[in-house]
């Protein structure tokens, strides 16, 4: 393709890609009073984005959901990377018997679609009182994050020479201390990468929220947003769009700021 055609084509395609984002930004910023949905491309006259955000935050209950989801997507993956790293440590450094079997068993947990587990979790949670509780949500988010974190951490810890472990033993360190003070700090970059990927996954979760929670205090963000989507309409559209914008800001910022890190990581990784 010639020097002119290529940038022209890419530029046009890029504009097509940005058009829905333009519509999102502009219409999320229009005042609700007098909002008409037949002039969506028209630029802004009055800027009411913050009013609409406040409305989504308070009246539609997204504020509660933001708090819950922040807790879930920090705590769930944080516990999961530690649990996964502990398994990797047991297999690689402590030479767990049948280590490969246990690893395959744990990693095999990613094979099933979530549809396969939500119903029994719903029934079981209701029985033991975990249904519609933050603890219940955190537990399930840890569980679904563990297999991937075990995969990455086992591979990463496998790259640390066993002499490191032996030398620490000579110095009289306990296994716990070796794990906590030597292996974890040495694998900080892998821990962070897994944490970010899983945090994004938990932040974006819809299905587990729909099936295992109900109240405004426990319900995660995406579930709250779909709820808002189906109850709000007409002149309230700017609020719904402001909600869509609100939930996307953290993932967009996180992705763009860590993109370089991941391109490098993927380059060296399994692909």
């Amino acid at each position, binding site marked *: 393709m010639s020097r002119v055609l290529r940038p022209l084509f890419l530029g046009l395609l*890029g504009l097509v890609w940005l058009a829905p984002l333009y519509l999102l930004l502009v219409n999320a910023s229009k005042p609700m009073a007098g909002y008409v949905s037949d002039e969506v491309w028209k630029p802004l006259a009055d800027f009411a984005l913050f009013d609409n955000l406040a409305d989504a935050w308070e009246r539609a209950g997204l504020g509660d959901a933001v708090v819950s989801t922040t807790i879930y997507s920090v705590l769930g993956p944080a516990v999961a990377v530690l649990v996964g790293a502990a398994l990797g440590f047991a297999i690689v450094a402590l030479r767990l018997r049948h280590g490969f079997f246990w690893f395959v068993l744990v990693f095999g947990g990613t094979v099933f679609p979530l549809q396969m587990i939500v119903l029994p979790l719903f029934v079981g949670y209701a029985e033991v009182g975990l249904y519609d509780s933050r603890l219940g949500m955190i537990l399930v988010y840890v569980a679904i994050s*563990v297999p991937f974190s075990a995969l990455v951490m086992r591979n990463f810890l496998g790259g640390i020479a066993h002499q490191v472990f032996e030398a620490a*033993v000579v110095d009289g360190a306990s296994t716990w201390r070796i794990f906590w003070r030597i292996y974890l700090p040495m694998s900080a970059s892998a821990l962070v990468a897994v944490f970010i990927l899983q945090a994004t996954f938990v932040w974006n979760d819809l299905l587990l929220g729909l099936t295992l929670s109900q109240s405004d205090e426990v319900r995660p963000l995406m579930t709250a947003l779909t709820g808002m989507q189906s109850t709000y309409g007409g002149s309230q559209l700017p609020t719904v769009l402001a909600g869509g914008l609100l939930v996307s800001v953290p993932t967009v910022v996180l992705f763009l700021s860590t993109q370089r890190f991941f391109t490098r990581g993927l380059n060296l990784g399994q692909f």
Partner: protein
Amino acid sequence: MTGLSTPAPARTTAGRGPGATGRGRRRGGPYRWSARAFSLPAILFVAVLLYLPFLWTAAISFTEYDGLGSPEWVGWANYTEMFADPNFTTSMRNTLMWVVGTITVPVGLGLLIAVLTHDMRFGAWFRLPFLLTYAVSPVAVGVVWTFVLQNGGGLSQALDGLGLPGADSRWLLDEPLNTLMMIGAWAWQQTGVNALLFVIGLQSIPKEPLEAARLDGASGWRMFRHMLWPMLRPLTTVVVGLALVASLKTFDIVMAMTEGGPGRNSETLALTMYREAFVSSAYGAGSAVALFLTVVTLVAAITYLRRQLSTKHEI
């Protein structure tokens, strides 16, 4: 063994006899108890919250159960009813559309963008719009596109303004148009990550053979067809494989845009499971759909991988 490792057993087992060390080694090394303790949390989480529910769902799919009373064994009845249900046929058709759509449109567009931008000045800037939309959460993508695709909404107004036909289409109401439009919305989200993966792949291709081909006069399509495409083959396998598995489980975007409707005409298998189990409280029927979906996913993934691996040496 290095000099460092030899004194280790002597110091750690000080006070115990050599017999203790010997017995420990036979049963899996001196750290067998710590090893068990460190691996236990991961195994417990996965066993209790993933495997146990999985087995429960598999068993319940052979019963009739609505959450009250106790499950009643019905054999294969849920499965025979499922295959006889026209809604299930629609759901299968839609899922198939999702699979074909996802492994062609976003993967193909991603590849095109990667090939066009990877050796270009300001290539990263031309890729930015696509990466930006990739970072938008699936449910938020649903919110944006529901707005764009309303009757007489953003898309219709744009077509009208440009004097193009189709402005009065009912984008999200008529089947199969609604599923096609949602696949488009999904492509809008997914193209960026595929482009990114292909760019990484292209940048890791050794430069020398490409230079040689260029000196021989290869460029454009020929360069792509005979040099880049074969070298990208392993990566393409991974990208298509991931898209295949993910597309079979399509849920979020459809739930956020049409909830499988109107009626049930845009349901995917994942939505059918949700509706049967959580809307109709037919736990047995919902579980049957879930198990069917799992089997389809596994069979598709295994078949795909085997075919890819068996043809690999031909390139």
